[in-house]
């Protein structure tokens, strides 16, 4: 049979093809593996691909799994532990590390019959917004290879945008799913905190991060969320879903009240982004929705609070990488020297910067002024959102203030890099869900519309997302990749 054309293939469609017997899981996985071989050397979106392992898993599904999503391929961010398969978190300190267990989300994927294509590139320990902080080299944006794919889940975004996987899982600590989804023209969901298990996710900032889907369509996003969400006995903070995720149908938005925090949009937003955002607001009203001005006065302090809390937690989470039990060890004449040599050699500059910030913020004499104060700000931000959701069904914001920026452009300016998450990280501080969907192109590059909801309103967000998706009519396949298999 002819090679399967997987570019732009949704997981929903792939599952339908498998169920209809139009192709086998092995053939489908084989088609992706061929594209990976052809395109990934340039993009560098995968850190680990094991074709034999993938094909064996696909054959198993061909023999046994014939329901639902069984046999559909997927790519996992290399922050997610995979039993027996190297997991590096994009860091030299974990080079060659083989986990003892699958992350809960991977185990759930396996249980659903998903077939792993490999592990995707990321900023080291998910610290970054461009995937340039990977110790294994940067990933390129399939829409423009001179630009970054966003981050930290840049590899997971690039593989889906380039047709090297039908969908993927990323993690979001401050925007790490939504911003790369926006940069690569994808749908990305940051789920409500505590609905998806973090067990087996290499921890960066425990109180902020969740695993979430990165997909071509809103319906795929819902399908993958159905797979991964749910309570876990291995994550004490994971209580699961309040209601099952429903597959959304596009429709009108009559009677829906969208909050728009106009004050937050006054400066720092690229004109092209603002134009696309305004256009989506117009679409919303055409679909019957009402726009309401909301205020999030403390959201603008989110960046400062975030860059205290996240590094504080990270400084503790990354202390375990000490060369004693696994991973890199650089020997020294005594214990302290071994620690210092190992951690100096094993961590990249951005990780070191955040460990320093976090350690400082928690130190005696500074703890109250930084860590405690940041927690207070976090509470105020949460209250901002709580108050806003009393009057609106969801809040609309651009996902990022810019489109994908050129590689290297922000590597010497950490604050400019951090500022790219200005619209996403207040959501993590509040622990609420947000969906990013493609919002058309700005000078040939994708932009994102972020739909933010109160806790446990994923179904609402997905329904709104499906409505926008249809009205916007975005083609998620980059022009250079259109027209069938290359």
């Amino acid at each position: 049979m002819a090679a399967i054309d997987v570019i732009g293939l949704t997981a929903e469609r792939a599952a339908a093809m498998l169920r209809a017997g139009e192709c086998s899981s092995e053939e489908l996985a084989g088609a992706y593996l061929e594209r990976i071989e052809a395109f990934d050397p340039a993009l560098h979106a995968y850190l680990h691909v094991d074709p034999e392992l993938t094909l064996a898993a696909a054959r198993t599904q061909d023999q046994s799994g014939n329901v639902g999503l069984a046999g559909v391929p997927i790519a996992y961010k290399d922050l997610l532990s995979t039993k027996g398969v190297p997991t590096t978190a994009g860091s030299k300190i974990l080079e060659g590390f083989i986990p003892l267990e699958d992350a809960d989300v991977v185990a759930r994927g396996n249980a659903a019959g998903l077939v792993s294509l490999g592990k995707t590139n990321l900023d080291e320990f998910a610290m970054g917004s461009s995937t340039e902080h990977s110790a294994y080299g940067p990933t390129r944006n399939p829409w423009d290879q001179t630009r970054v794919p966003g981050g930290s889940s840049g590899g997971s975004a690039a593989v889906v945008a380039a047709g090297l996987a039908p969908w993927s899982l990323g993690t979001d600590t401050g925007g790490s799913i939504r911003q790369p989804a926006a940069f690569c023209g994808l749908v990305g969901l940051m789920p409500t905190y505590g609905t998806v298990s973090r067990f087996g996710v290499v921890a960066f900032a425990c109180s902020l991060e969740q695993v979430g889907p990165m997909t071509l369509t809103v319906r795929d996003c819902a399908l993958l969320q159905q797979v991964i969400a749910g309570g876990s006995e291995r994550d004490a903070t994971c209580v699961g879903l309040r209601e099952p995720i429903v597959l959304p149908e596009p429709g009108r938005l009559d009677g829906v009240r969208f909050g728009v925090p106009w004050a937050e949009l006054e400066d720092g937003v690229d004109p092209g982004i603002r134009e696309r955002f305004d256009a989506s607001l117009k679409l919303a009203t055409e679909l019957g929705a009402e726009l309401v001005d909301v205020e999030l006065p403390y959201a603008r302090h989110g960046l400062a609070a975030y860059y205290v809390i996240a590094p504080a937690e990270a400084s503790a989470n990354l202390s375990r990488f000490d060369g004693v039990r696994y991973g890199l060890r650089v020997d020294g004449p005594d214990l302290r020297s071994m620690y210092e040599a190992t951690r100096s050699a094993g961590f990249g500059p951005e990780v070191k910067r955040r460990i320093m910030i976090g350690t400082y913020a928690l130190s005696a004499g500074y703890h109250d002024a930084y860590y405690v104060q940041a927690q207070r700000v976090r509470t105020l931000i949460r209250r901002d959102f709580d108050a806003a959701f009393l009057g609106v069904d969801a809040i609309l914001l651009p996902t990022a203030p810019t489109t994908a920026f050129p590689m290297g452009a922000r590597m010497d300016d950490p604050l400019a890099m951090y500022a790219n998450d200005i619209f996403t990280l207040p959501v993590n501080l509040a622990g609420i869900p947000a969906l990013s969907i493609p919002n058309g192109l700005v000078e040939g590059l994708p932009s994102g519309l972020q739909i933010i909801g109160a806790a446990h309103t994923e179904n609402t967000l997905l329904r709104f997302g499906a409505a926008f998706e249809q009205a916007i009519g975005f083609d998620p396949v980059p022009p250079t990749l259109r027209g069938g298999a290359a």
Partner: protein
Amino acid sequence: MSAPWQKNGYEAVIGLEIHVQLATNSKLFCSCANQFGDEPNTNVCMVCLAHPGAMPVANAEAIRQATRVGVALGCRIPETSEFSRKQYFYPDSPKAYQISQYDQPMCAEGLFRVPGEGGFDVRLTRAHLEEDAAKMIHAGGEGGRISGSAGSIVDFNRVGTPLLEIVSEPDIRSPEDARRFLTLLRATVVAIGASDCDMEKGSLRADANVSIRPIGSTEYGTKTELKNMNSFRFLERGIEAELERQLEVVLGGGSIEQETLHFDPVAGTLSSLRSKEQAHDYRYFPEPDLLPVHQTEAGLVELGSDLPELPAARFDRLVAAGLTEPTALALAVDADLARYLDAVATDTGDLKTSANWTMGEFSAHLNGAGLSANQSPVTPERLAALIALVVDGTINQTAAKEVFGVLVEDPQATAAGVVVDRNLAQVGGDDALGEIIDAVLAAHPEEVEAFKGGREQVIGFLVGQCMKQSGGRADAKALQGLLRARLNG
């Protein structure tokens, strides 16, 4: 005799920090077995080894046991407590932070009473739940110590063992009192079954904060912290040595440095582990991977009503029942023995006599055989039956001891059966005793003369002869009365 610091006008000020390993089936934050003595690094998982992605899940049983200890020690149990990360780099701490509790512990302030003569109260600051560290073995160092060792190996079996750290206020005023306090506290924790509190195995560990101050002063002096006192005797000796050291420094015109000291029980010396300048900044912050622990009023009431009789209350009860303080204390701190006694006394209805037997013959038998009370073949019912024969005069003490020996040797034997088999029933009738007395007096005319001549102590010899004649079965009291009557008559 007063201690050297007291002779010099100083008072000892002592507080204890006590670590108790809770006897749960699994560890505090994972499902690995919580047990001592297995092959190194066999009871471990990715949580124990702090693999990336591992997450702690709190053991509900450990929380329950910690709460029970808190209630038993008279602590207030706050409605909410939370876990925090205590950060330090060392190979015994795989995450490089210990999950402990900081400003919201499981158990808040309490008051612990040490009863009896010279008894005292000790305020408890708090008791918090935390995970134990791994065990470091410093290969090549003397006795596994780090000094002089070529390298270190780590056994992660112990990491994650639930540990309750109990902190007292500096309310203890002598090394003996420190020992007495810890003895009763240990007994309390053992009594409720929360831990075996074996200092040799390390399931009970005590550090002491020690300072001296002029008698009458209300301010505290600079304290030092003493570590590694792994027996009650070493605790007392270590504190004593440190108090003497501090006295010497102060008398020499020096001042005490705040430092952590290691007590070497063999040499009886103290060496400095670290000074104040080297004190850690643990950079505590709330553990984001765990939810706060909530206690309900109803849950605490139920938990409190389930507790067994505690040592201090038992001491009070036994003293009120007429036992001496030393006997009551010995029973108060030995729950097995106390339970045994209660069972015996329930049958005999005579607590005092039952206590004499329990603390006498029975304890000697346990010590000799290396058994605990519930392991002895002499069940409370069997001992009670024996005591009953003594109380009703069927047998005398001498015979009773013989019967007890048979009960130990032969688990099938009954006290009454042994008395019959061995013909041990007391000879108590006037006629029977009269015959014996006649015979003895006839055989010892010189002693009879001596008694009549005023040497009354000779009666002891004559009683002994009569007893011998009776095969040890004579009722000694009746015998003496009759004998006296005959001699004086």
